[in-house]
């Protein structure tokens, strides 16, 4: 149900720079609501990426990553026309995958 990511992947030289924006609350678990109750943490825990179907990147995040997260990484050997697929999974088990073509 989560909204799509925005993925930009640009090749330069022998690598491609991948920039990703994800739509997610990234609730810290530190905040209290109007009635004084702590809002439970809700955040992306794992981010992975594939280049043409092959795993190339993985990371673990905590609740201190900002809301609507931004991520940048560089994939070696990626060239224009290659497919980059990014997947996130949050601590409630929700997940989303989007794909972009390297330009």
């Amino acid at each position, binding site marked *: 149900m989560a*909204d*799509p*990511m*925005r993925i930009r992947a640009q090749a330069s030289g022998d690598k491609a720079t991948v*920039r990703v*924006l*994800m*739509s997610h*609350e*990234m609730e810290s678990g530190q905040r209290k609501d109007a009635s004084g109750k702590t809002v439970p943490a809700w955040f992306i825990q794992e981010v992975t990426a594939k280049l043409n179907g092959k795993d190339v990147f993985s990371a673990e995040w905590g609740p201190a990553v*900002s*809301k*609507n997260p*931004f991520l*940048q990484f560089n994939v070696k050997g990626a060239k224009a026309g290659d497919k980059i697929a990014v997947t996130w999974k949050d601590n409630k088990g929700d997940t989303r995958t989007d794909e972009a073509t390297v330009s």
Partner: protein
Amino acid sequence: MNKASSLAIAVALALGTMPALAQKTASQGIDEYRAMLQDGNPAELFEAKGEDLWKKARGPKNVSLEKCDLGKGPGVVKGAFVALPKYFADTQRMQDLESRLVTCMETLQGFNAAEISKTAFGRGEMANVTALATWIAAESKGQRFNLSQEHAQEKTFYEVGKRLFFQRGGPHDFSCASCHGEEGKRIRLQDLPILTKNPGDGIGFAAWPAYRVSNGQMWSMQLRLNDCYRQQRFPYPGFGSDATIALSTYLGVNAKGAASIAPAIKR
């Protein structure tokens, strides 16, 4: 110039123990921070959502908004944003982008306009109106504001908007002009655009809708004005009310010639 040098002194005094900072003014530091955020504006997420909402068949009538007339003819999106608010003959009223979108959602898609207008910002169909406005604004990126002042209502609304801009009231005696009537002023570290004339490309009226990093929300112009009024300690302006549209007309006409950068990214 003055501002920068006095800040430099303030920073040197306050942060003298930090060599990296002492060589840089606070405003330079903040400019760098803002520059770092430019590449990757989460407003893009809302743009994408808005484009999808425009093209998707939705509502009780299950049709898209692709025949919506934003002032340039049915379905014309590019250039519409920088000409709003304007007078619409079909509704016989002045409308800004958001109130016009709500009209289209009612007439084309069968939604209840009054219900949407009552919905809180960021919720339900109101969140969709904001996403739509974000995409439509983005489609005019780089174009210059050029509001019509042809129709009698357009002129009248400019004049009413001017009066609202200078209306002092509430416990603090604030008007819009208290903060936006002079050039080169700040609240805390926040630069305040002068809004009685064209403040420059992408400043003031030409920057909204914008993504607010402080709360991770997408802010439309209606919400921008709503929160200005809140901080002014004024009562609550209705969504799409004539006051908000008259004020937008005043700001938009004054911004004539300013290139739009919306959706921007803001503090």
